[in-house]
């Protein structure tokens, strides 16, 4: 399976869909299913043979564009496509062909960010994802979603400008766009320009990755978006973006200076997100703040991943856990209640998953993250993570209490899709897949 299919299929199908208006959603569903199959196949290839490098258009790197699928990107590509499929089933019926088209574009873009090995391609995929996401957020077509989309757009555009400056600065010195090529020659860069480019890239990608204080758009966009879109945003673009940060920080700039910076950013993001969620009355907004907190946790894991192998395992588990639990919670937030067995199950399992109870994936995420923290002798980080965990427990207890048992109005397919999405966290928490994939990347994220 050529990994480029993962990007090519949804892109192609997205532009075919307008021709078959009525069948648009069905075609999109087919494309997503096909993509899921390919991503699972890709995952199994990476699982058995390690990092896959694929050259596109015949030019060898560093000149040509190429795809680099390491174990984390294989996992994320699978998660994004699989969850996109389930999520689409949950919202598919209500959607029209324009929505399906944008949805496919967002999926293609997120997958592209994850599997590309070229920094400019990463930017292009960022833009594809972002443009599709802006439109998706606005797709509810009321004032709030417009407002959310516009704020998202302003900050997203600002972010992409900074990414482009960062890329330009790197190119000006090294004349290369290939991530691994850059990584091998990073020490030859002029120090000032190097730091300026790290700062630009971190700022630019950080906007999409929801890290504080670049995440002003997050609560508004999530609140304005419909549940299905918010769910897509939480497992698609934001995960891809945080992965991009991981790739850039761990592959290109694994430096001690960056380490403390990213760690501090992560801790602040975690605290701000969790604290802001505590007093929030609107469910979607609360979940959005909670997402910010979780992103902070992943950022901490990324920072520690520079020195500590446990933290890389933590990145894997935390990403899967957050993707699964938050996606189902966002889907659930469309209706103010959990009335039937399936929605009750979804609510409980997602909340348990997100606060990191065993045997859900989130437990292993927290476990390995804190193991890494104690190995790095960082008691203050541990204490702050515990503190935020208690705050998180408080507002999720309140959330469960308020919505459990109320009437709801989901279709049968939606309910079951949500339940499946929530169960993913449990499945990945029990299977040894993630652990073994994580072990494969212990030394150097890229595996080059």
């Amino acid at each position, binding site marked *: 399976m050529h990994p480029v299919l993962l990007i090519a299929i949804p892109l192609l199908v997205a532009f075919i869909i307008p021709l078959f208006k009525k069948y648009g959603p069905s075609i999109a569903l087919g494309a997503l299913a096909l993509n899921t199959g390919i991503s699972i196949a890709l995952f199994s290839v990476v699982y058995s043979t390690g990092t896959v490098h694929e050259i596109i258009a015949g030019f060898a790197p560093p000149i040509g564009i190429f795809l680099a699928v390491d174990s984390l990107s294989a996992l994320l590509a699978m998660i994004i496509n699989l969850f996109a499929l389930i999520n689409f089933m949950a919202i598919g019926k209500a959607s029209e062909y324009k929505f399906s088209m944008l949805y496919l574009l967002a999926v293609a873009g997120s997958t592209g960010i994850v599997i590309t090995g070229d920094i400019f391609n990463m930017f292009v995929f960022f833009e594809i994802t972002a443009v599709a996401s802006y439109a998706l957020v606005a797709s509810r077509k009321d004032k709030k979603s417009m407002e959310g989309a*516009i*704020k998202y757009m*302003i*900050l997203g555009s*600002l972010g992409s400008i900074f990414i482009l400056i960062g890329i330009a600065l790197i190119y000006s010195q090294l004349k290369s766009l290939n991530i691994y090529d850059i990584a091998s020659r990073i020490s030859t860069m002029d120090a000032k320009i190097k*730091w300026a480019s*790290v*700062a630009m890239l*971190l*700022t630019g990608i*950080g*906007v999409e990755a929801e890290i504080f*204080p*670049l995440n*002003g758009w997050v*609560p*508004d966009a999530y609140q304005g978006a419909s549940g299905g879109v918010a769910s897509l945003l939480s497992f698609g673009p934001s995960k891809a973006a945080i992965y991009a940060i991981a790739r850039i920080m761990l592959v290109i700039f694994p430096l001690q*200076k960056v380490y403390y*910076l990213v760690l501090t950013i992560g801790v602040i993001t975690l605290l*701000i997100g969790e*604290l*802001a*969620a*505590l*007093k929030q009355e609107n469910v979607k907004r609360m979940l959005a703040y909670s997402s910010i907190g979780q992103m902070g946790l992943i950022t901490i894991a990324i920072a520690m991943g520079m020195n500590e192998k446990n933290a890389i395992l933590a990145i894997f588990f935390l990403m899967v856990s957050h993707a699964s639990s938050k996606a189902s919670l966002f889907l659930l937030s469309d209706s103010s209640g959990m009335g039937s067995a399936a929605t009750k199950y979804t609510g409980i399992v997602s909340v*348990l998953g997100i*606060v990191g*109870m*065993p*045997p859900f*994936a989130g*437990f*292993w995420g927290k*476990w390995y993250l*804190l*193991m890494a*923290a*104690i*190995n790095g*002798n960082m008691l203050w980080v*541990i204490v702050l993570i*515990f503190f935020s*965990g*208690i*705050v998180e*427990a*408080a507002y*999720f*207890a309140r959330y*469960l*209490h308020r919505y*459990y048992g109320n009437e709801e109005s989901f279709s049968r397919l939606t309910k079951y899709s949500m339940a499946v999405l929530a169960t993913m966290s449990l499945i990945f*928490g*029990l*299977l*040894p897949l*993630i*652990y*073994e994939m994580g*072990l494969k990347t212990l030394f150097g994220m890229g595996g080059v």
Partner: protein
Amino acid sequence: MLDIILAEILVAAIITFFVGRKLAAIIAMAVSILPLIALLDWASLYGFNIIHLGIEKSISIPIAGVSLNLAITPLGWFFALMIIPLFPAIMLFSYSFYKKNDGFYPFMLLALLSSIGIIMAKDMLTFFLFWEMMSWSSFLLVYRSRDKEAVMSYFIFSSLSAFLIFLGILIIYQQNASLLLSSINIESNAYGVVAIISLIAGFAIKSVLMPLHAWAPYVYSKSDEPFVAFLAGGLSKLGYYGMFLILFILAGAKVLETYFTNLSPNYILAVFGALSAFIATLIAFMQDDMRKLLAYSSIGQLGYIAIGFGIGTPLAVSGALFQAFNHAFFKAVLFLAAGAVAYRTGKWKISELGGVGYRMPFTFMATLFAIFTLAAIPITSGFAAKWLLYESAIDAKYIFVAPIMLIAGVGAFLYSFRILYGVFLGENRYPNIKEAPKSMVAAMFILVMPLLIFLIFPGYMLDMMHDALISGNIATLNHNAFVIETSLASYNTIAVIVALMIALIPAILIYKTRKHRVVDFMDNYLAGELPELYDNKISMHAASRFYKPIEEIIGPYFEPGTMSYYMAIYRGLKAISDAVRKIYTGKAGDYAIYVTLFLLIIMGWFIWM
């Protein structure tokens, strides 16, 4: 065998999710039989020739790439002995208690599964994983009450407990680079001490030691009684399992002693236990809700175990473990009895009940026996346990703890008397109710059995905890079936029975020779003074505000209650939260400023660093 047990319980938990209530109860009961048999089987590991099915000492379960190691340790076996037998009885009780299967059985089975996991854990990861599982499965059971205070306080306190334990585990891991309990050696430095204290605080939350008990009154009084019976009887012991593990098996007590040369931290634990016993007893006086009374009673009775662990002498620890065992059974019986009474009458308030015992004689008998054990009436096993504890406190010259324990012990009888009189005796307000269903009565009597056995043979209890004490480097007391030898005054069942007889015979004689008359409930014992509640037809007797004078004296000291302090913290957090979220002004221009500032700051960071 252990793996079969765990697998079987897990499968049963899934099945009971889908089947009807009666089948679910039967399945849950049936699967808990195997662990019971296994308990006897494991008994042969420790020198009891009961049965022998093929013992295995340890297993490992692969999960998410790591393996969970479990083994049958002496301590684990002893605690299993007090937790597992509760389960089938509670399931039997619930057979007729529930009208439909709405999630009670699967989570109960998960709670049982995780309890077994906790006490059989061979490494800290396994321990913590099962601890968290126990937390959330019991949380979901609390959740069924749909009571805001109960749900939120249990979830938050459980998280707090989990994090404290996690912190301790992390520090221990850092010191030893290993999580295996057998290879852990806590260093005697500041970090080690922090680890021990945070672990003990985490365990204290689960075993409701004051002042970390604040969740218990809400949870115990609002959840279903069968679950509360398991929570108060079984799950609260897991905290003390953890404390024993840390203090004695991992030698945390010695670490504390060597680190703090001048003051004894174990003494502090004993003081917390004593205060817990004392204060909870006083608060229990003032409760009208039967379940709340039992909740505070639990807090008080569990405090004794902390006293025993704090004193730490062989005598004290034996007494504490004995008390833990007793408490598991009598408190389960009492909560089940409360459930049975409520099942027939629909009431929990002592002031609204009365005379239930005339119609529910078997429930009354079981309750009576449990209360005798709780209040440590001589010859009950509760008396034996507290005898050891009092004696150890006196022996260790804990001049603050010993008298407080004694007062709390008398207090325990005073408040439990209110249940006897206010609920079961007195005015016959429910002449038309029936005895509780047979399964409920049977369940209560099954749970009373062990108490009876150890009433007669208190020495057997010491046999059972022998290996556990040895594994914690604690000497055991000399004993035979009837006599426990101690340095001050040995406990001798025969002597106690004889003494009791000598005291009882005159009492019976006096009772028999006096004339009795049946008085009206509103008879003139009020001495002409009309109680303010008279008009509302709420009688003022043992059932309602019997200890009004005491209440008036001590009541003000217990306002506003521990929970209000925690609520103040919570409100403070909310205020911080409110301030923090103001960062998100909603204006794109402000966010653009944040982005710019962020860029400048990290550029500055790179230049400055």
